[in-house]
């Protein structure tokens, strides 16, 4: 029997171990794929075609297992296969782990009562659809409301907002989420009244809908949490109260009259209107608008009011059906499944390059048909790889939409008038990056509104600026990077104030001469704030340092440009995707390393007379008349079998203005490398920036040029040793 073959037996045992080790409460069974694939190969080799088919089926189950029940089913099926083949396996109990139960109970809130989880929520597909759709519509709602706030006649936005709330209401109905349904319905009714021209969309109504959207969002989050933890569903009573408030607003003033429109817009007070109406009743035949202009109301505003009234009347006639029939040709895919795909394609690429390697060295090396086919496979694999990577790219639009809302709220709280606009929201960025920069951008935008824009309108007027402070968010591609910039036309940064503060805090020496950029970088330090008083929005000295740290950790950079009195720009430079860089792969002995191309100056073949021994400095190599320390990497890394000085190459590298020449055996070529962290398992290692997966699937280490240059200064050996010691102590911590 094929299952008695040794390789098959090994795979079966491995599977049994994995199954026994599986934590019953997780949906992650991807680890089983590898052994299954090998089992399939083993079965294939043994000619057991039935088993091949069966294992393939199992692989599909495992690959498609997106949730717990599916994962458990796959595990059961694998166990059944193992049992049929005579391998006993004991499955871990499929009970939720004890940790989940130990979570602290949330604080009881007077406004919150809990109800049992509606049964409909157990339909996972429906629930996920609801969560995704609700999130999408609520995010869009913020933007639409901002549009409506700026332009009350923006009918498109009004309809879109109505449709979004309508969808949420419908889905909530399916899932028996009464509170969400009620609130969405109330907000929808108010908008409907506006659409049917029974009500004016004034500031009060917009604020009420903003609040409704916030409350809906909170409730959706609560639903997600409750459904995940299978806990009772909290119901926010204040949401019901708000729905009642919305209903009252809807019932209010059914007809839009010019006077009301103008009062709502703040163009005129009610007394003036009343006086004018009295005048009309007393026999004045002229229209209300004319009378109001006579009374000193700006003609422009009256005209606007009349336009609003006319538009409202027109709206009545062409009433569109509240349909959500906007079909889109997109499919939603969970990110982790996409990641699995990218990983699988990565493995395919590795297998493919190994295959090519084999074919080149094997007996069939001369078969041009084989070579052609392999070249085809290689091309297709590469295409697949870039396709899969591009699927992770998302436009910045959603992030920008959220920031528009943040700017509005910040403006409200500070009582400033802000004109916020975005450019380049279609710029695409890796999804993970978009998520990671959300908070940093939020800080910067709040800063621009809270600190950047002058607190008093008079200050702006004296400076000859418009009343409304302008905050602009711009995104664009340049080179291999994406830039996101937040500009304001406010006060700008005061270099003197920053310097004075830095000196008083002892960060900067009294006599130090700092460049403009160096001064601006000071405000990115932890605990540094020039704001004279702490406000709710900003000025606590936290924020910008966090922003800088986040951006640094993403491999980007944060720069500040500013002109005092004119405004400031915070510019974020980010890599296109996470951690991809151009590197030169070099060989030393039988090891390969990658040197970041950005740090490379040039590479030369050294001549004997180029290398000088200098007492106290070690070896120096002269490259184009420039003397730089020579680092024999083979010696530093203790690699045996490396070539001598004259068979090798010297790669001149630079970091932070310091240079060194790195001696390597061979330059293998330049390529795009994906930087993988070496992981927390190793602690932090100075000399390496990370690992790169090379085309043959092995890991090549990426040199951290800065650390190696520092190690080359002065006593090289001692530095190496002390590095080893710090490594040890880091590991032991």
């Amino acid at each position, binding site marked *: 029997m094929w299952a008695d073959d040794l390789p098959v037996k090994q795979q079966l045992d*491995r599977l*049994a*171990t*994995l199954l*026994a*080790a599986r*934590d019953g409460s997780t949906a992650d069974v991807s*680890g089983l794929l*590898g*052994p299954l694939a090998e089992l399939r190969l083993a079965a294939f080799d043994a000619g057991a075609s039935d088993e091949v088919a069966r294992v393939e089926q199992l692989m599909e189950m495992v690959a498609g297992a997106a949730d717990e029940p599916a994962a458990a089913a796959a595990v059961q099926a694998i166990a059944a296969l193992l049992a049929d083949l005579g391998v006993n396996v*004991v499955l*871990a*109990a499929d009970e939720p782990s*004890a940790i989940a139960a130990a979570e602290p109970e949330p604080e009881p809130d007077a406004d919150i009562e809990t109800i049992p989880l509606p049964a409909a929520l157990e339909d996972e597909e429906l629930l996920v659809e609801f969560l995704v759709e609700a999130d999408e519509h609520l995010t869009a709602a913020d933007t639409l409301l901002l549009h409506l706030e700026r332009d009350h006649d923006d009918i498109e936005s009004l309809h879109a907002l109505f449709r979004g709330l309508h969808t949420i209401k419908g889905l909530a109905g399916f899932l028996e989420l009464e509170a969400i349904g009620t609130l969405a319905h109330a907000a929808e009714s108010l908008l409907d009244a506006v659409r049917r021209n029974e009500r004016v969309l004034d500031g009060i109504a917009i604020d009420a809908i903003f609040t409704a959207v916030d409350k809906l969002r909170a409730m959706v989050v609560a639903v997600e949490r409750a459904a995940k933890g299978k806990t009772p569903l909290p119901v926010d009573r204040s949401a019901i109260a708000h729905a009642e408030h919305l209903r009252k607003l809807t019932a209010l003033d059914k007809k839009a009259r010019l006077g009301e429109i103008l009062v709502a817009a703040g163009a005129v007070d009610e007394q003036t209107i009343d006086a004018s109406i009295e005048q009309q009743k007393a026999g004045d035949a002229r229209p209300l608008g004319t009378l109001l202009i006579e009374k000193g109301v700006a003609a422009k505003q009256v005209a606007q009011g009349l336009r609003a009234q006319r538009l409202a009347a027109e709206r009545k006639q062409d009433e569109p059906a509240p349909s959500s029939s906007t079909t889109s040709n997109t499919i939603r895919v969970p990110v982790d499944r996409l990641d699995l795909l*990218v*990983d699988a394609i*990565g*493995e395919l690429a*590795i297998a493919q390059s190994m295959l090519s390697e084999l074919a080149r060295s094997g007996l069939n090396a001369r078969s041009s048909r084989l070579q052609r086919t392999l070249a085809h496979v290689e091309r297709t694999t590469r295409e697949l790889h870039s396709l899969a990577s591009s699927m992770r790219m998302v436009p910045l639009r959603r992030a920008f939409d959220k920031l528009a809302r943040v700017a509005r709220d910040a403006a409200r709280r500070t009582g400033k008038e802000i004109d916020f606009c975005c450019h380049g929201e279609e710029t695409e960025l890796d999804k993970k990056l978009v998520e990671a920069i959300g908070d940093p951008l939020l800080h910067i935008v709040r800063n621009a509104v809270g600190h950047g824009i002058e607190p008093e309108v008079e200050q702006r007027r004296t400076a000859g600026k418009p009343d409304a402070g302008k905050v602009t968010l711009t995104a664009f591609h340049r080179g291999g990077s994406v830039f996101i910039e937040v500009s304001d036309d406010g006060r700008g940064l005061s270099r003197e104030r920053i310097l004075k503060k830095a000196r008083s805090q002892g960060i900067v020496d009294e006599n130090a001469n700092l460049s403009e950029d160096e001064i601006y970088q000071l405000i990115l330090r932890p605990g540094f704030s020039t704001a004279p008083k702490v406000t709710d929005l900003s000025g606590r000295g936290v924020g910008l340092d966090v922003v800088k740290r986040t951006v640094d950790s993403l491999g980007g950079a944060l720069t500040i440009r500013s002109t005092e009195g004119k405004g400031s720009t915070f510019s974020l430079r980010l890599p296109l995707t996470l951690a991809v860089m151009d590197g030169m792969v070099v060989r030393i002995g039988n*090891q390969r390393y990658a040197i970041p191309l950005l740090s490379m100056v040039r590479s030369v073949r050294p001549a004997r007379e180029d290398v000088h021994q200098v007492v106290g400095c070690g070896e120096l190599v002269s490259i184009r008349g420039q003397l730089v320390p020579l680092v024999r990497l083979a010696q*530093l*890394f*203790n*690699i045996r079998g490396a070539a001598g000085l004259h068979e090798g190459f010297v790669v001149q590298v630079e970091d932070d203005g310091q240079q060194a020449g790195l001696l390597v055996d061979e330059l293998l070529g330049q390529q795009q490398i994906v930087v*993988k*962290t*070496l*992981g*927390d*398992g*190793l602690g932090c*290692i100075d*000399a*390496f920036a*990370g*690992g790169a*997966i090379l085309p043959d*699937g*092995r*890991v*090549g*280490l990426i040199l951290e040029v800065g650390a190696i240059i520092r190690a080359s200064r002065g006593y090289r050996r001692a530095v*190496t040793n002390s*590095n*080893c010691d710090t*490594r*040890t*102590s880091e*590991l*032991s*911590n």
Partner: protein
Amino acid sequence: MERQESQPAAGGARVAGAGKYLTFRLGEEEYGLEILKVRELIGLMEITPVPMTPEYIRGVINLRGKVIPVVDLRLKFGLQPTPDNDRKTIIVVDVKKPKGLVQMGVLVDLVSEVAFIAADDIEAPPSFGDDYATSFILGMGKSKGVLKVLLDIDVVLGSSDVISAAVHAPAQPNANAAASSLQ
């Protein structure tokens, strides 16, 4: 089904609880790892050495696109290195580090089996006096008449005791002494 997490003892160090252990060999000795810590087993593959790290760190491997370090448990415990062979296996484990769970590979001579060890068959870690820290041992388990050293992998891969034993005194390592004197 019995499945108990090891409980923290009064002294802070954990002691072994009844449950399943993945057992493996290093030299002549049998060791056990809590099965819940084990993610997967992989055959010995080419390992990229990381210069300027202690000898027991064999290097890093590409585990389906993820780079994880591999610790040679032989060297970590101060045993003599042996040439690589097909029976050697990398056990991928989840190790608790201050920053959270970290995946690491542990290279062992041979993976034996998954054994259920009952509470009655587990003894407290032996004490060798103050000079020899045994906090990396959860307990001594007996299965099919063979004594197995049940390891606390979090301590093994994180503790300074074991590391200093391997780095500074490879000739007389604690772990080795502890393990062999129990036989």
